C-alpha cells in the first residue's frame, strides 16, 4: 500500500503515446509520473481503485497482493454503490479508515488464491460478501458472522480494508467470503447477493413471519425492495410497504409486475 499525499486531486486521461489502456486519476500529475518511473505502478500491475478523500472522489493506482494464505484476489467485473458508501463519504462511519478503496457490493472472477483456500479456484465466478468472517469463533459458529471476533471480522471490505470499486480486490477468509455463482445465474443477477439482498434475506429470516401475518416494511429503497422480495417468499397474508417518495412508490408497483427467470433490468 502506498501513502497518499494530501492536497488536491486532479483528473487525468491516458494518452495514446503512453500506451496505457486504463483510465487513471491521481494527485498531481508529477507525483504520479514519479511513481510510474519508480516502478510502483506498471503495465503488468495496472490496478486502479476508487477512494474517497474529503468529499472528492478520485481514482488512483494501488497494488493488490495476497497477504495471507486464506486470501483470494478477485478481478471485479461488476460492482455497485451502496448507501453505506455515502455514510462513509459523509463521515458517519467512525470505523472507516481514511484513504482506503471503498465498495463492498461486487461480483468477479477469482484470479489468485492463497495456499489454504479450498472452496474457490482461479477462474471461478464469485459473489463477494460484504462481510469478512473466520467461520471458527463463537459468533461465526452461531451464525452471528457480523460479529466475528477476528480483527478483520464484520464489515471490513470498503470500510477498513480496500474494497471493490476497483479492478482487483483482496478478499480475506475467501472460503467464507466468496460464493461461486451458478452457471445459470448472470453477474447482474448475482450483483446484490453479498450485501443488500443478503440484508433483506436476513431481515425476513429473523422476523418470525408466519403465513397468517401482516407484515409492514418501512422503506422502499434498494434494501426495502430486496426485503420485500424475501418477505414474499415467506408467504404472509398481506404486506404493506410504506414509502415517502411517490417515485419509489410507483417503482414498487413496477417491480411487482416483472417476470422471474431472466434479465429485466433497465441498464443501458
Amino acid at each position, binding site marked *: 500500500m502506498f501513502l497518499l499525499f494530501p492536497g488536491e486531486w486532479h483528473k487525468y486521461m491516458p494518452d495514446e503515446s503512453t500506451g496505457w489502456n486504463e*483510465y487513471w486519476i491521481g494527485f498531481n500529475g508529477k507525483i504520479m509520473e514519479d511513481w510510474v518511473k519508480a516502478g510502483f505502478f506498471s503495465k503488468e500491475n495496472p490496478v*486502479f481503485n476508487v477512494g474517497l478523500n474529503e468529499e472528492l*472522489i478520485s*481514482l488512483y493506482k494501488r497494488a493488490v497482493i495476497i497477504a495471507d494464505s486464506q486470501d483470494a484476489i478477485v478481478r471485479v*467485473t*461488476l*460492482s455497485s*454503490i451502496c*448507501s453505506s*458508501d*455515502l455514510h462513509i*463519504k459523509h463521515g458517519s462511519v467512525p470505523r472507516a479508515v481514511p484513504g482506503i478503496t471503498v465498495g463492498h457490493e461486487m461480483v468477479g472472477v477469482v484470479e489468485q488464491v492463497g495456499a489454504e483456500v479450498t472452496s474457490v479456484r482461479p477462474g471461478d465466478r464469485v*459473489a463477494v460478501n460484504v462481510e469478512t*468472517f473466520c467461520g471458527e469463533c463463537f459468533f461465526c459458529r452461531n*451464525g452471528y*458472522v*457480523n460479529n466475528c471476533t477476528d480483527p478483520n471480522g464484520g464489515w471490513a471490505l470498503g470500510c477498513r480494508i480496500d474494497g471493490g*470499486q476497483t*479492478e482487483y480486490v483482496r478478499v480475506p477468509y475467501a472460503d467464507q467470503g466468496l460464493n461461486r455463482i*451458478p452457471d*445459470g*445465474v448472470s453477474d*447482474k443477477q*448475482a*450483483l*446484490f*447477493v*453479498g450485501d443488500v*439482498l*443478503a440484508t433483506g*434475506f436476513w*431481515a425476513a429470516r*429473523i*422476523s418470525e413471519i408466519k403465513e*397468517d401475518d401482516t*407484515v*409492514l*416494511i*418501512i*422503506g*422502499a429503497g434498494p434494501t426495502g425492495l430486496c*426485503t*420485500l*422480495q424475501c418477505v414474499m*417468499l415467506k*408467504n404472509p*397474508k398481506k*404486506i*404493506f*410497504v*410504506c*414509502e415517502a417518495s411517490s417515485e*419509489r412508490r410507483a417503482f414498487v408497483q413496477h*417491480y*411487482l409486475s*416483472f417476470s*422471474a*427467470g431472466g434479465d*429485466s*433490468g433497465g441498464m443501458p
Partner: protein
Amino acid sequence: MFSIIYPSVQVVTPEECLNAAQSLERGGADVVIEVAGGEDTFELAWKAARPNAVVTVVALYGRPQILPLPQMYGKNLTFKTGGVDGCDCTEILSLIEEGKIDTTPLITHGFPLSRIEEAYKIFENKEDGVIKIAIDNRY
C-alpha cells in the same frame, strides 16, 4: 420464464401508514421491518406494530433514536436489531437460480468505473429515478 404469484402487497405513504396498520384486526402489523432510517420511521415502526409483535430494525440512523419505555409499557414488543449476518449466500444464489428471487429490475443505471463520479452524484442525490447502479469495473 414465469410470473410469480405474490401475496397481496399494498403501498402506502407515511401519512396513511399508521392508520392503515392500527385499523388491522390485531391493532397493528404482526411484523414490522424498518429499513428506511428516516427521522420518524423508528417511531412509526413501533407504533404501527401490534402488541407482542416483532419489530426488526435494519436501518442505519444518523442519530440516536428514542425508546419511550413508559409509553410502550405493556405493548410487549420484541425488537431485533443489527447488521446483516451474511451467511445465507449459497441459499440465496440457489433461489435466484430457481427464479424465486430476481433483483435485476433494481439496476436502473449503468456506468463504467471511469465515470464513477457521475454515478455517485446520481445515487447520492436520488436523481433520475435511480434505485441501484451497476458499475462495469472493466473500463
